[in-house]
């Protein structure tokens, strides 16, 4: 299988303004410290790590919301590492993102129908209304929701709108950044099942960022474990769970409280 993403020595640093000296440049804060990995077409890859691991930064670099400071990101053969916004725009249809907080990522003053339709209009799709209807159908929302505002929906419903917006563009790749962390377990299960179904039906490539290994276990074939901006483990999910190699992965796994009073949790 060909690789959709090839990431080589990816580095990203930000200026640390809190420690800027009186004169001269602020010291750089290394967020990503040289990552190498690939995402094959059709794969479902989990990216896991604690807070400060750089997983969200990595996600935003993949869809070029952030510009890396070193290394390269190749998307389907094209080097997008430093591609200017104007040249990036036609490519953007092909990699989409679903955000963690649907309340903030859906424009509060636009109706759901417009939120889903707008990206398609930008990319010159025809028959947009029919496509909006189909996208709503795909994520299991009734057609009437097109006329509602985001604040009129529940958390799980909003997240479905986020998914509908992403899949409506028929992208090759979707990045899901902690999309169930704000939801209750019952909506969590529903959204995950939906995503699993869509990925299979539409043949999508998915990168799923989460702090929750249990969710990754369910959804992803391969898992990348990040710790303080570096990859500590990158393996098939089943292997990673049965025989974790990195000390941090082991620590993560052992810390998870299973719903089972007999679990040894030392």
């Amino acid at each position, binding site marked *: 299988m060909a690789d959709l993403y090839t990431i080589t020595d990816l580095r990203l640093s930000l200026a640390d303004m809190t420690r800027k000296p009186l004169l001269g440049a602020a010291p750089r804060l290394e967020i990503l410290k040289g990552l190498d990995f690939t995402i094959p077409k059709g794969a479902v890859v989990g990216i896991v790590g604690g807070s400060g691991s750089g997983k969200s930064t990595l996600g935003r670099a993949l869809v070029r919301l952030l510009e890396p400071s070193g290394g390269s990101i190749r998307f389907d053969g094209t080097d997008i590492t430093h591609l200017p916004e104007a040249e990036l725009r036609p490519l953007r249809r092909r990699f989409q993102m679903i955000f963690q907080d649907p309340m903030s990522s859906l424009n509060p003053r636009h109706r759901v129908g417009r939120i889903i339709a707008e990206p398609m209009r930008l990319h010159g799709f025809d028959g947009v209304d029919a496509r909006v209807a189909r996208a709503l159908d795909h994520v299991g929302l009734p057609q009437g929701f097109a006329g509602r505002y985001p604040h009129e929906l529940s958390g799980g419903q909003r997240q479905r709108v986020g998914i509908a917006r992403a899949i409506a563009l028929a992208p090759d790749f979707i990045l899901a950044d902690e999309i169930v962390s704000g939801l209750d377990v019952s909506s969590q299960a529903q959204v995950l099942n939906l995503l699993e179904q869509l990925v299979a039906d539409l043949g999508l490539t998915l990168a799923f960022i989460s702090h929750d290994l249990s969710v990754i276990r*369910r959804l992803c074939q391969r898992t990348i474990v990040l710790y303080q901006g570096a990859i500590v483990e990158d393996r098939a999910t089943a292997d990673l769970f049965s025989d974790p190699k990195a000390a941090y992965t082991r620590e*993560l796994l052992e810390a998870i409280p299973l*719903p089972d*009073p007999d679990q040894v949790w030392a």
Partner: protein
Amino acid sequence: MSFLSIRELSVRLKGGPPLLRRVSLDVAAGEVRGLVGESGAGKSMIGKAVLGILPGSVEVTGGEIRLDGVDLLALPPAERRRRIGATAALIPQDPLTALNPSRRIGGQITDRLVDILGWERGRAEARARELLAEVQIPEPERVLRNYPHELSGGMRQRILIASAFAAEPKLIVADEPTTALDVTVQKQILKLIAGMQARHGTALLFVTHDLGVVSKVCQSLSVLYAGMVVEDARVRDFFAAPKHAYSAALLAATPKYTDPMASLTPVPDAVIEAVRAEVAAADRGGHG
């Protein structure tokens, strides 16, 4: 005898729908009881009612909350406040917002001891040092003079735990105390709380949405749906075989990496409908 005893507690939004529907539960001295439910189920509301910190927009419409045998709801406000301050404490959810940014750590631990319990300042400060050592904070002397922003999130959570145990309360309400933390830190903090609870023999009301956490720290639990207790069980019995269909579905929806295909099962619509009907029936019964 149970130290905390809630009987038929009903709370509603002023002029609005009920938030708690005749909730009854007991916490024995030294026992840890989990309060579980999805958001909006009313689990935090129970903790707030016990501690007398219900928001101004809600009102208690009936029932009693007996703390050490005394019905808190029957006391005048000032007396109730003093009594709660002297016998109960809160471990809050978010360590980043639960410490006053403009006051030193020391004062925030000792204030209750000095102002409410009338301790001498020196004795209170000695107690604070002792507690910080107990929650494994290095250099307690220095930390007492720090402001919150100078400490990490994990340190702040430890300080809040120390502060909760300061007056040797008989009951502590822990309101999702680890939800904001990474799993690895969560484990340390849960172990710390459990250890302190056992050593001090404190009763603990543990509010959480995570059944995994409940199975680690609690001896009994109450499952809530729409402000109603649908199941009240010992932890071992519950995880072996939940009695109510809704709690069984909740358990099935909980992620479990050891058995991925059997976890994360959505709660079936039929179960939701059934439990809603149950709530409606209880409401009718309550009014009829």
